[in-house]
């Protein structure tokens, strides 16, 4: 099971802050593909923005490996400061 969190416009448009994914994926990219196949809303919203990701709270490329128990966050480019 992988915990997936969404932030900012993505969270708002999906109407969802967090979900659990139980699938055999080895990278964040594959995880995103699985989500897109799950629903049209995911398919639409996950393609709309330049997607950044954090794995276990570290900002990392979408090619990063993931495993069971990881926390993955998907979000648009950050705009703080």
């Amino acid at each position, binding site marked *: 099971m992988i915990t997936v969190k969404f932030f900012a416009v993505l969270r708002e448009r999906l109407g969802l802050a967090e979900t659990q994914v139980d699938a055999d994926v080895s990278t964040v990219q594959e995880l995103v593909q699985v989500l897109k196949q799950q629903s049209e809303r995911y398919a639409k919203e996950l393609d709309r923005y330049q997607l950044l990701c954090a794995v276990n*709270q*570290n*900002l990392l490329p979408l090619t990063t490996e993931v495993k069971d128990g990881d926390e993955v966050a998907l*979000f648009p480019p*950050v*705009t*703080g*400061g």
Partner: protein
Amino acid sequence: MSISVRVQQEDFDLATEYQRLAQNKQCGAVVTFTGLVRDSVEGGLRGLELEHYPGMTEKALTDIVEEAQKRWDLRGVTVIHRVGYLSLNEQIVMVAVASGHRQAAFSAASFIMDYLKTQAPFWKKEHTEEGEHWVEAKQSDQQAAEQWSQQQ
């Protein structure tokens, strides 16, 4: 070396943070940066909503400060970023860096802000008279951060 990283709803006081760093007997130079909620050219901004990723935020800021420490000889760094709803003219963010040398203090403060803008999980939503919209990331911020990695 004293590091303080805070993510909070409450406002901060620049003077208090400056005094704390200036007390360090080894720092001859203190540079502070403060960012405020300002109306953009179009006008009509009422305030900002600042969303963040609790847990990761503090970690990301601490990582950025530690990277700055590796690059320059610093005596103290304080980073405070506010979250939640901030009205026009309120303070958003503060970075204060103390060092023995002014150039280290200037460079580190500027580096921390450039990295914070591209690496720390904060997102701004503008509340204007016409409605709400999420702020888009600026290409110029990305470029500013990339310049530091070329210098490494």
